[in-house]
């Protein structure tokens, strides 16, 4: 399958496994942990909803997995991602984008034609990435497509 452009109106699913403490109920609201978007390669994986037939169950690996969603437009609207020096002065700014990275015949991962990755341009460091995932968690707030069982 060829890579195809992701439009701003597309919805992206992120799997949230159970037993990871990735959500907490505070005053009756489910807060999403920023770590739900943590990624070693600083490129969180998501699924393009429309290539999953808008069915978040197809993003689950286990029946106990939760699924949150974010809108591509909101992800790309992250316009103030900045790396500061030790005195707090900006030295580099970043834009955020999402690209289609379908997975086929991977030695570890199952085939996933809907797979996409959120990334920064240029590639950011860990500290900047931590701010990005805080924003992604806020964007996912209240957008549980499949809630985690408590």
């Amino acid at each position: 399958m060829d890579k195809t452009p992701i439009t701003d109106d597309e919805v992206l699913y992120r799997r949230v496994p159970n037993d990871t403490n990735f959500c907490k109920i505070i005053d009756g609201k489910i807060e999403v942990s920023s770590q739900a978007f943590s990624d070693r390669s600083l490129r969180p994986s998501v699924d393009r909803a429309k290539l999953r037939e808008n069915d978040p169950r197809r993003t689950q690996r286990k029946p106990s997995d939760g699924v949150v969603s974010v809108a591509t437009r909101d992800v790309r609207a992250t316009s103030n991602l900045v790396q500061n020096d030790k005195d707090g002065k900006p030295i580099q700014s970043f834009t955020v984008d999402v690209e289609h990275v379908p997975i086929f015949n991977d030695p570890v991962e199952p085939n996933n034609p809907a797979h996409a990755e959120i990334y920064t341009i240029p590639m950011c460091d860990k500290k900047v990435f931590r701010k990005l995932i805080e924003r992604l968690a806020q964007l996912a707030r209240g957008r549980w497509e499949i809630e985690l069982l408590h």
Partner: protein
Amino acid sequence: MLQVRNVRADDKRRDTLATEVSSGIGEVNEKLRQSEVRSIVAFCSNRAETLRFALLPETDFKKLIREATWDTLTAIYNLLTWRDGWNGYDACAPKYNAVVNADKWIEQLYLVVMSLHGNWIKPNVTASADGDVVFEWWHGTKKLTVYIGEQSAEYVKVWGLNTDSDMSDGDAESISTCRLLWLWLVS
């Protein structure tokens, strides 16, 4: 062979620590202990350090703090049961030394909170994909995330969606920073 032995030793150490913190205490007891620790911290802050040991053996004081933070400690050591890939993607298992460091850091923060006469708010305890221990607190519109690595403690403060003007980060190792972070969170 040496590698196998080391892996077994690590597993045994993890199992022992996980067992050590496998039981909890009630909320009422927790509040009583919190009040007790707060009183002792207040008393000691007005007197010579040596008086602290005359009043209460250090081991008992430490035990009191550990009992007061038992749920959090349990959650911290439970991370040692998580294996590579625990987040459903490519996360590495939480690092043993990060867990030990997190135990020390949370004790330090707890004492800071007690010295401020504050009420302890239990953190959400999870891990990063790199194997750091992660503490998170939500309070009103504020969110505090602290990453504890093998030799580091770093924070991200969040009070809005803008990644530049509504977020800041830095080291969270010193007592003075812990104090400022807590005051910011609860203000």
